[in-house]
């Protein structure tokens, strides 16, 4: 009996599900929302950047202050990202390969910079190294500058990008376990050789994934850098802070020209990220990326 009842149902027809109309309405709602809040802002960056044509665009990028902001952004990322790779790999090794008390507290502390406002991070450095800060007088006496100078920008950038590499590596290394390393050590490989020939190649794709996200944030950080840099034109302005200066001077075209560089970086990051997720889905943890 039951066979007869169910037989006419086409194999692709679902027992439960929404009607075609409901589906279309839901998809349309989502697309309108994404259009307003996601795609329109992205398109407008490039539309505004090229509003006055190629020549104005190139002139805005060739401006000495813009050029120096681009260099400083690259310079800061070139220090902050390798620093966070080393610390992130060390943190992942300690957390993923060993069992010790207080591990979950350590992981929470590594994640802490994600929850702290970048402005609060910048403020903390001002209170340590600023003129009225705890180390301010000592730094001044020794003719050293951290805030309103490049070192402060580097440290603030390290703060906001601190968790990225560790976050991607920890779940992957935990999933891999310690069997491979134990085998290598038992066969007589040295500790460093085991690390460089076994551990690192095993996690290279999730490491690359973490580095990608870390770099995007490092080059685009605004709040923390704005607070500690003092935004001295041509000296301590990175691309994001230079964008703010230009925008506040009603030089929208130049601001959007610089912004288009960072938007292009974001697009490249997304493309590489999507490629890594698609190609190496097993290696990259399905955690909620933030």
């Amino acid at each position, binding site marked *: 009996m039951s066979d007869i009842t169910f037989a006419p149902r086409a194999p692709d027809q679902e027992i439960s599900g929404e009607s075609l109309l409901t589906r279309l309405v839901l998809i349309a709602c989502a697309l309108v929302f994404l259009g307003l809040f996601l795609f329109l802002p992205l398109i407008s960056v490039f539309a505004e950047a090229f509003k006055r044509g190629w020549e104005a665009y190139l002139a805005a990028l060739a401006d000495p202050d813009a050029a120096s902001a681009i260099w400083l952004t690259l310079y800061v990322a070139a220090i902050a990202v390798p620093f966070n790779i080393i610390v992130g790999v060390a943190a992942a090794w300690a957390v993923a390969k060993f069992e010790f008390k207080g591990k979950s507290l350590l992981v929470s502390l590594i994640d802490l910079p994600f929850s702290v406002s970048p402005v609060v991070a910048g403020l*903390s450095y001002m209170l340590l190294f600023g003129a009225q800060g705890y180390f301010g007088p000592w730094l001044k006496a020794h003719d050293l500058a951290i805030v309103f100078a490049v070192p402060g920008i580097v440290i603030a950038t390290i703060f906001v990008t601190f968790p990225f590499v560790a976050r991607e590596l920890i779940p992957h290394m935990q999933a891999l376990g310690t069997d491979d390393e134990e085998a290598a050590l038992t066969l007589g490989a040295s500790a460093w050789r085991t690390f460089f020939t076994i551990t690192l190649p095993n996690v290279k794709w999730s490491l690359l994934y973490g580095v990608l*996200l870390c770099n995007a944030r490092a080059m685009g950080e605004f709040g923390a850098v704005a607070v500690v840099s003092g935004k001295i034109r041509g000296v301590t302005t990175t691309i994001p802070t230079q964008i703010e200066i230009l925008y506040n001077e009603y030089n929208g075209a130049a601001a959007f020209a610089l912004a288009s560089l960072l938007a292009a970086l974001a697009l490249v990051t997304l493309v590489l990220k999507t490629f890594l997720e698609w190609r190496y889905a097993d290696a990259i943890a399905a955690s909620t*990326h933030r």
Partner: protein
Amino acid sequence: MSLAASTRWRQPSILPGFGLAFGTTLTALCLIVLIPLTALMLRAAGAGWADIVAIASSPRTLAALRLSFGAALIAALVNTVFGLLIAWILVRYEFPGRRLIDAAVDLPFALPTAVAGISLSAIYAPNGWVGSFANQLGFQIAYTPLGVMVALIFIGLPFVVRSVQPVLAESERSIEEAAALLGASRLRTVFRVILPAVAPAVLTGFVLAFARAVGEYGSVIFIAGNIPMVSEIAPLLIVIKLEQFDYAGAAVIGMMMLIVSFVMILVLNLVQAWGRERLGHV
């Protein structure tokens, strides 16, 4: 003796390098994160109770905190509804451009906040693509608290989508089919079967979006107009106080925001524990 102590603290392993890795991590963590945040707490506490209360309860501080929390809450709620919708269509429906949209959802993570800020204010300003429509309808988006919400919706958009998506993808369609065969309407199935199953993931995404939005600075300041008492967010007030060399004032507001961050982390852990207890994952 020291060996016994160290084995109690961590389980023995034949793998080398624990001391080096742990030491590097802890040193960097202290220098970059913990000592600066402690300095902030000390500086705020050093202001004394009377000053702390005066700064924290001044009308301008209260207005800024109300805006930061209120706008973050509304933005997180909007993102919860639409995040659920986006996750649903990405997991359950097949339509042209689905993969492109799936990838694009992460754009707010990748696009620097200053870039988002200037492009949002260009679009939602009275002469912008969307702002001019709103103007004809008689209201303004940019340079009002509405503008703050728009920016916070943008930066919080991926959180709910990305936390709900994997849970929806793993959920058993057969349970929904059972509900349908037992006579439940589709709407009833959605509210009684599907939503309860994804609730912990939705709540996780909501808390993440809210926590991010409360502390957000870069994308907001361009679109907010930054009118004191009206559209001035708490992080901006910190920056203004710093520029006026009012370090104690900045430290007190900074400490209040830091406490909120700690509460958010606690809430997040509770939500995730609840999810694990209920469903065995999240």
